[in-house]
């Protein structure tokens, strides 16, 4: 019983450490991807902005707009809350396993990890009381 108890204690502590460690390491990469998207939109660089979108989000944007992503994304309300690259809007991020939410200025960006890289699954979001955000760039 003692050996079993010791093993359980170690495993429990391990779980907590893994959770804490993984979340910390992922924060910078997720926030950086969100800021790059907003900076690209502000600079009217549609190619760079679309390269940061998750595949399903990109194809959904093209389908709903009827235009190539590189043009459609520049018509969305993105990156207008300040210049994130100049440090005026540092932003903050919360990471939970494969998902993240970055808040930069008034932009709220949802991201997911694809093959080790953070890509945007939803952006240009407006809050709706007691409901999910209404995002004009989103998954199907």
């Amino acid at each position: 019983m003692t050996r079993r108890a010791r093993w359980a204690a170690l495993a429990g502590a391990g779980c907590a450490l893994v959770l804490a460690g993984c979340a910390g390491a992922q924060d910078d990469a997720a926030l950086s991807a969100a800021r790059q998207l907003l900076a690209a939109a502000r600079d009217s660089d549609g190619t760079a902005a679309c390269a940061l979108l998750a595949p399903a989000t990109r194809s959904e944007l093209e389908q709903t707009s009827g235009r190539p992503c590189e043009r459609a994304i520049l018509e969305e309300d993105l990156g207008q809350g300040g210049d994130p690259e100049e440090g005026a809007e540092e932003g903050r991020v919360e990471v939970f396993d494969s998902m993240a939410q970055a808040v930069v200025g008034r932009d709220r960006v949802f991201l997911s990890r694809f093959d080790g890289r953070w890509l945007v699954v939803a952006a240009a979001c407006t809050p709706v009381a007691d409901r999910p955000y209404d995002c004009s760039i989103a998954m199907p």
Partner: protein
Amino acid sequence: MRRGFVRHNALSLFFGALFLLSLAGQSVAGWLQFNDRQVAEHLDAVPWAGYVSSSDFAVDVAENWQSEFLQFWVYLMATVWLLQKGSPESKELDKAGRESDEDQKIGRFAEPGSPAWAKVGGWRTRLYSSSLAAVMGAIFLMSWFVQSVAGWAAFNEERLQQLRDPLAWSEYLRAADFWARTLQNWQSEFLAVGTLAVLAIYLRQRGSPQSKPVGEPHDSTGVEG
């Protein structure tokens, strides 16, 4: 020598092996289930190693651990005071409570083979007298804490997929998801242990110390086979 070791430790070895096999099976089934949901959400599949270090796996493991160790802790404590006439899980009907030092073979009533802390008296004997429940209770609390942290992360991962704001850990402790995970496990543990205590009044398993001897009367209490 080795055959003797296996024979003398067969119960713990058997359950240790069952535990590891079940945990391995859970990790594979849970990984496939997780990736199936990821595909449905147009998200990326994760490798097995990524899944077993995720909060989704941790919460599924921890929520079952906490309830099992709670079950044993409650059972240990309840059977000190509560009796069940006719059940081999109960003590005899005149022995409710912590019993005398003589019954418990502690202090001056210790035997030559008694554990050292049972003989020595004072705080060490008091501590040793509750050591099993203390360790079980500590593992329960730790597993429940891990469930709360891992469940919080897994729940927020799902909320972000739904394009909703994440909750703080303190908010998650009041959320339905935390209590649904907790109580669905507790109810099954209490049902199982209560059922064993009652069915063992009338039913038998020949050769098992968890049962009365097959020919023992139904109203015999505290008799193990």
